């Protein structure tokens, strides 16, 4: 199969959906002429023009609010937040409006919008530009949270998200954009249903749950564990809402051990929810307490050594797994 980069997969997904459905359009800061801060909309203005690829002012609450209004008006907007960090500026529109207006109006309106947001740390961008805050949105009912780890998943999930009749927050990790991976030819339609996890590496001794960039750390950790004679399964939920709980329970019921890794802050992260559900559902099947790996509860520091100390790594995953497997 051909290999393309993560950002190229995103471009293909958007282009295909825009060709397919006239109601789909993009809006965001520097997405048009500039091509997107991470090149993820490169070439789209040339193909689709200014009407469907709209450069916006630097006004994140406004961007999300307009996208929501356009969805109310029957369009299928795909707004881009230049980065996830600025979702914090748009929090009221996302949580109070995008996520609530279907329910609070008794299901009268479909709100099909897909908010794309690059995020994550590890590149010395400091405290305000390194967020992995997907847990905040999983905590808020009413918006789907999609968070792919490979070019293949990025393409298939973005296309499905754009076709979804509900609001989706589509989280992209900044360190994934240049990652290459196999993706079917454009002539083959690639759609991945939401709520379907994928086992990225099978194993029988411990389940490593990871999403987004952490999947790649988990794969490294699994390599290292294999050298210790431990066969780790790397399990990627791919979407955090909906969440493929049954598949997770099946994996952990087999391996009887689990480590959850996330790049976000450990306290009250998605890992806390996963650990809680595992003990509720599989208490008697577990051979060891569920381990959580996550970021230190500090604003991400700039200095390279401190940033590395703050963020979770393959090494942390390896050690957490080793601790419960021996």
């Amino acid at each position: 199969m051909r290999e393309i980069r993560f950002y190229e997969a995103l471009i293909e997904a958007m282009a295909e959906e825009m060709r397919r459905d006239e109601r789909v359009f993009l809006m965001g800061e520097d997405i048009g002429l500039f091509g997107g801060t991470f090149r993820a909309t490169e070439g789209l203005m040339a193909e689709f023009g200014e009407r469907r690829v709209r450069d916006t002012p630097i006004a994140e609450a406004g961007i999300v609010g307009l996208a929501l209004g356009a969805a109310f008006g029957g369009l299928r907007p795909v707004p881009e937040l230049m980065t996830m960090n600025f979702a914090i500026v748009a929090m009221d529109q996302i949580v109070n409006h995008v996520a609530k207006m279907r329910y609070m109006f008794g299901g009268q309106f479909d709100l099909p919008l897909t908010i794309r947001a690059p995020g994550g740390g590890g590149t010395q961008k400091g405290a305000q530009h390194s967020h992995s805050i997907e847990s905040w949105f999983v905590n808020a009912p009413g918006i789907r949270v999609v968070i792919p780890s490979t070019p293949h998943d990025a393409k298939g999930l973005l296309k499905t998200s754009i076709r979804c009749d509900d609001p989706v927050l589509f989280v992209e990790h900044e360190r994934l954009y240049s990652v290459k991976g196999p993706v079917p030819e454009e002539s083959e339609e690639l759609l991945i249903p939401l709520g379907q996890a994928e086992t990225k590496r099978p194993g029988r001794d411990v389940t490593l749950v990871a999403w987004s960039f952490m999947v790649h750390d988990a794969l490294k950790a699994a390599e290292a564990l294999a050298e210790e004679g431990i066969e780790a399964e790397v399990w990627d939920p791919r979407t955090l809402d909906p969440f493929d709980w049954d598949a997770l329970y099946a994996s952990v019921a087999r391996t009887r051990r689990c480590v959850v890794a996330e790049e976000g802050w450990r306290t009250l992260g998605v890992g806390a929810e996963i650990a809680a559900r595992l003990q509720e559902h599989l208490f008697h099947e577990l051979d060891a307490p569920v381990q959580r790996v996550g970021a230190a509860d500090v604003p991400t520091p700039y200095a390279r050594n401190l940033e590395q100390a703050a963020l979770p790594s393959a090494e942390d995953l390896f050690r957490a797994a080793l601790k419960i497997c021996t």
Partner: protein
Amino acid sequence: MISPTDQIKMYRQMLLIRRIEERIAECYGEGKIGGFTHLYIGQEAVAVGAINALNQDDNVIDTYRDHGHFLVRGGDPKALMAELFGRVTGCCKGKGGSMHLADAEHYFFGGTGIVGASIPIAVGLGLASAYREDDHITMAFFGDGATNQGVWHEGLNFATIWNLPVIFVCENNFYGIGTDVRLSSAFTEVHKKAAGYGIPGYLIDGMDVMEVRQRCEEVVRLVRGGAGPALIEARCYRYQGHSMTDPGRYRARAEEELWRKRDPIPRLARQMLDAEVVTQERLDEMEREIEAQVEEAVRFADESPEPGPEMLYEHMFRERYPSDPHA
């Protein structure tokens, strides 16, 4: 000129809002309505004059003070009352409440309880019209307080750069809860506040439904014709407290008296009687009809069932997945 039929229609709409809200206040006192309820009494001429200047398929979006706009847009008084009572027959099946009325069928995109937040959404509705090149326009209602919110400014800026068919209607009642606009706003003449965005502003008397209607029709014509966004400042006064729990100690009695003398409902009645558009008998009859309509709405709400427990998890998403919480 507003036709006699239209004058009577507007009178009836204002009177319905007034009477239904008086009844809402009673029901609130009886504990039949909970939470926050913000009455529109005193400001009726704005919703009635402005919305009647629109077509039925234009968009309207609103704040938490939304009973009046909902009714004028064509919302059913029974569905309003049932929503306030938290009943399944309410316009949002009892899930919204007083602050979150909506009516898809009548292009009423709801009340939000977050001051200013409806503005970018309104502009997005305008964007949808411009994108499709249809000739619908969007009208957004909000208070003076909203004009100091960041998203208000973001929305106006967007509306201008993309030349969107949106009419921003500020109902300037001079207070945000208990804070005088002079204390909260660097610039109290709201209609001039849009100048920085190149948006024309119009100052109108929000206590005179005929003026509101006529001036709004002019603005609607311009905006529908492609002139871009416009701002209307309708000066008005709410006769009741900010919400049901407001004793209203911050306003001078004399000021209240002054505004009560300008009550838009008797004002239109007088005008219609003088012009012999209507007789006193017809007005009395209308009063009785509305009273019956209000009582019917209350009875309907009272007799309607609550939403069943199985509805707790309904209406979350169009597309459902096995992991979604369910009853």
